């Protein structure tokens, strides 16, 4: 099956972008696509712990990230530059992440069959 990379580039909760990206990622994995999630730019804010989106009328789709291995999504990739830009290098994220340099990300984007940006 094809390899699909779902790229999260927008901040959570202010738009439906991240939520719709996650819906697609889970569906993609359920169709046996080798699915990776890549967090870049403000998309890295999805990964912070302690979020309470219900307080602002949003659904807590963030909780789903912890369960992604049960949906056969094993690789959560993060852009190192995006972390550094926000002072988040070394931040204790509650998820198991692979932090990649821009060159490593470029490699990954080349390896997969398709990339969808959210």
């Amino acid at each position, binding site marked *: *099956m*094809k390899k*699909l990379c779902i790229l999260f580039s927008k901040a959570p909760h202010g738009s*439906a*972008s991240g939520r*719709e990206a996650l*819906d*697609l990622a889970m*569906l*993609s994995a359920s*169709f046996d*696509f080798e699915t990776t999630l890549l967090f870049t730019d403000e998309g890295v804010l999805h990964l912070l712990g302690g979020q309470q989106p219900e307080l602002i009328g949003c659904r807590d789709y963030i909780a789903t990230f912890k369960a992604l291995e049960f949906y056969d999504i094993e690789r959560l990739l993060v852009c190192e530059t995006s972390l550094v830009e926000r002072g988040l290098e070394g931040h204790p994220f509650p998820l198991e992440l692979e932090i990649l340099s821009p060159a490593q990300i470029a490699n990954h984007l080349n390896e997969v*069959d*398709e990339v*969808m*940006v959210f």
Partner: protein
Amino acid sequence: MSTFIIQVSGAAYGSAAPVHALAFAKAAIAGGHQILRVFFYQDGVFNTSSLGTPASDEFNVYQAWREFSREYSVPLVNCISAALRRGMLSKEEADIHGLPHWNVDDIIDNGGLGELITGIAKADRLMCF
């Protein structure tokens, strides 16, 4: 000949994305290629309104999609969950939800994300707008 799947995320009004998607799809067909389907996701589902009414001297993208679909037999597919959340309902969906109105006509297939994924699996190239 190659096959494309076209994914549209931009709204019908206020976004250039659908106009680009439509022109690209027509150019692909003119070039001898096939469009497997056009899939509307995110705000792209607004393209499927049968009630969109631009002024008579403006380009009518709602109608243009429908004419494109009829002329070239290309299925237009909505992501139903994205559509429901944005108030884009077929008559069937309105009945299921006990709602008195609907705004998505029969030419639009109410599919799921699965149709996007199977389309990506089958097509040579995914084009997002």
